[in-house]
């Protein structure tokens, strides 16, 4: 049974697991996936890559940023059967560049870029660790409770 108390202006409610078993009837406003204000994930609504995605960490902004962008763009737009097969040169350039900065891009593994830039090297590399330093929650926002409704209800509710 839940138990409620009031201490001045503050209200305290204790609830048991059973109390919270029933689904919530609180209403949340549906999110507009095309909201220009919202933080975007890795891929923008128009299909482009969001180079500023925190999930990429410093890959697109570091000394090898331009090589990374070329390689990853090529991969992203590749329509070959084996996706990215024509991008070998770009990836090689990127790898060569990264080898020049072993501190920033530790060379334990092959640096093939996957769809999630930062998950490419699983070991202690600068990208994921610094990525998580600057990562805000935007990459988990797409997973937030929001339906895929396209209703443009981005209206500002008067507060």
């Amino acid at each position: 049974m839940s138990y409620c108390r009031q201490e001045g202006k503050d209200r305290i409610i204790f609830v048991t697991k059973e109390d919270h078993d029933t689904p919530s009837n609180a209403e949340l406003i549906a999110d507009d996936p095309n909201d220009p204000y919202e933080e975007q994930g890795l891929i923008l609504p128009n299909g482009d890559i969001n180079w500023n995605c925190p999930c990429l960490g410093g890959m697109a902004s570091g000394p090898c940023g331009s090589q990374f962008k070329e390689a990853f763009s090529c991969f992203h737009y590749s329509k070959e059967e084996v996706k990215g097969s024509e991008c070998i040169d770009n990836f090689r350039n990127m790898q060569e560049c990264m080898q020049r900065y072993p501190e920033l891009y530790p060379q334990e593994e092959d640096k093939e870029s996957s769809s999630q830039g930062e998950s490419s090297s699983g070991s202690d590399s600068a990208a994921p660790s610094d990525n998580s330093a600057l990562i805000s929650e935007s990459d988990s926002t797409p997973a937030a409770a929001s339906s895929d409704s396209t209703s443009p209800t981005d209206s500002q509710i008067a507060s």
Partner: protein
Amino acid sequence: MLKCRTVWKKLAPLARSSSTLCRQNVKRTGLNNGRIPTCVPAANMSTGPGGLGGDNLKYTIMVGAACVGSLTYAYFLLKGDQKRYQERIEEITTRSQRSSKEEAATVQSEPPAVEATQTEAVPESVPEAAPSPEEPSPPAAPAEEPAAPAEAAAPSETTAPPPADEPVVEAPPEEAATPVAAPVVEEEPAAAAETPTAEPPEPQPEVVAESAADSTPASLKVPSHSPYLLIGGGTASFAAARSIRARDPGARVLIVTDEPDLPYMRPPLSKELWFSDDPSVTETLRFKQWNGKERSIYFQPPSFYINSEELASAENGGVAVLTGKKVVHMDVRGNKVKLDDDTEISYDKCLIATGGVPRNLQVIERAGEEVMKKTTLFRKIEDFKSLDNVSRNAKSITIIGGGFLGSELACALGRRSTESGLEVIQMFPEKGNMGKVLPEYLSNWTTEKVKREGVKVIAEALVKSVTCKDDKLEIHLKDGRLVKTDHIVAAVGLEPNVDLAKSAGLEVDSDFGGYRVNAELQARSNIWVAGDAACFYDIRLGRRRVEHHDHAVVSGRLAGENMTGASKPYWHQSMFWSDLGPDVGYEAIGIVDSSLPTVGVFAKATAKDTPKAATEKSGTGIRSESETEDTATSPVASVTPLPPVAHKDDYGKGVIFYLRDKVVVGIILWNVFNRMPIARKIIKDGEEHADLNEVAKLFNIHED
């Protein structure tokens, strides 16, 4: 011959001193011994009836040339010295001591000296003689002596590491040039062959700059223009730099900071770094994250950045950091700033991310030098190092301030106290820890937890005065209590740095402090402000100024986006978090002010509900990965476990809603992790909810 003799007699003392100095050098002994003895007999022989004839003549010519050359050099050197001395005095009076700048000045004055010596006289003594006269100038000597022998003859002098250069040239203005002249003369010819050809004045700063650049990321040469100029080298600035580079390919970004360090993150300075087992942590500044991986507090290693001289020419642009330089004046009409060394940098777009300076208590400032020496205002790396040092030596430390920083430091030091017997006291005017953030019941509960970490908490304490007696500090409180301690840490807030407001003509907010900017973080046409210093308009929550790490990241990133043409307002709500020991950890978002009415929904807690347990159990979904920062909760957990609770008043875990006009404007997730997106959504909606218990259900607080 007679003339030669008289000249020689004049220079005899010099020759003698130089020869003594030469003998000190092991390497050149052979040459010396070969040379010096012959000089003396030469004087005698020159008056002889004919002597050795040809050989003698050859020798006389060489010695004569050497003497003439040395005299010429001495003359020029004296003149140059006087000039340099005057310049130096002027420089010193107009700016603060920074040896890196002196190098540029002093080394540039080297070429005149180098060019003055056109002599081909064979060196009598050795290049290493030059360092020796600097023994009178203590700071120079130790660095120079070991450096010099290693360099031997050649281009050593001017391409030597700047610290070596500096003493060489610093010495002359300080002492009479004569003793220096002869040895330096000998040194010059050795270097002369290569230096005049290799180093005419212009490339000179570059040469030095290159060697300087190798040793430190800071460089001497300040670029005159940078398309993107970021003032301040903290979290917001770095986030903006990254954002700009991501969006504008090949962007050239210049960060100017008055700290000596590259951009780093602050939260570990009051949390993880204190829990590290590594005794050299103050040097390495590495900490362990939640997943066991180590990382440095620096966002990127030095190799990420490029040198400021290369900024203009780098093919793909880059980020350059100019450390140790302060922007003192901003000319908005001319789109340029002036540094404290009078150099100017023009820009196309500018970000002000100057952060702030820790506030101090007036009573401490008035208390005098002795008390100030025993007080730490905690913010930077050097403060962390000094406090770490103090905590190992002092018997008692008092923290004044009961907010985030004060409480975190108290817990960190409290943990140390269990090993070392250090007494940790925390005092603040509120009734409990985090009294301005948490509702009273929770603040009291938190205070109990802090006490369990080994901290002596003195609540409702207003400091009346502080005195220093018998090398101990005495803090007199307004209610009469007296606290004796060795060291004080003042964590009483942050004063935003708005020094540039006057010269730039920027508005300063009177309610919150900081530069007033619009919802898109813009102050004026080409000027944005982000981080602690920005008082911005939050579309949802109104005008505010936020001093948290995630806000610095979010606002920095947003400013970077807007500087590259995005025009987005502040929309993604930043969050913050705190851990007070292994039992109490919370994440929060929005306006979390204890003066607002709150509704707290708590689960009946079990022992599983602690940050420690949360990090150990969950895999990738640790809050630190989905949120901004990796936080290592204490790896060393030697605390009493939470008793399995059925007690009504135990606030193990739950959600607290802060309301303003019945709308939720702030949420605290109390020992509940990985639910921040839901909280963010609720605040973004800005709805009036009739029953907050229903809203609380969305968080599934009973689950892990």
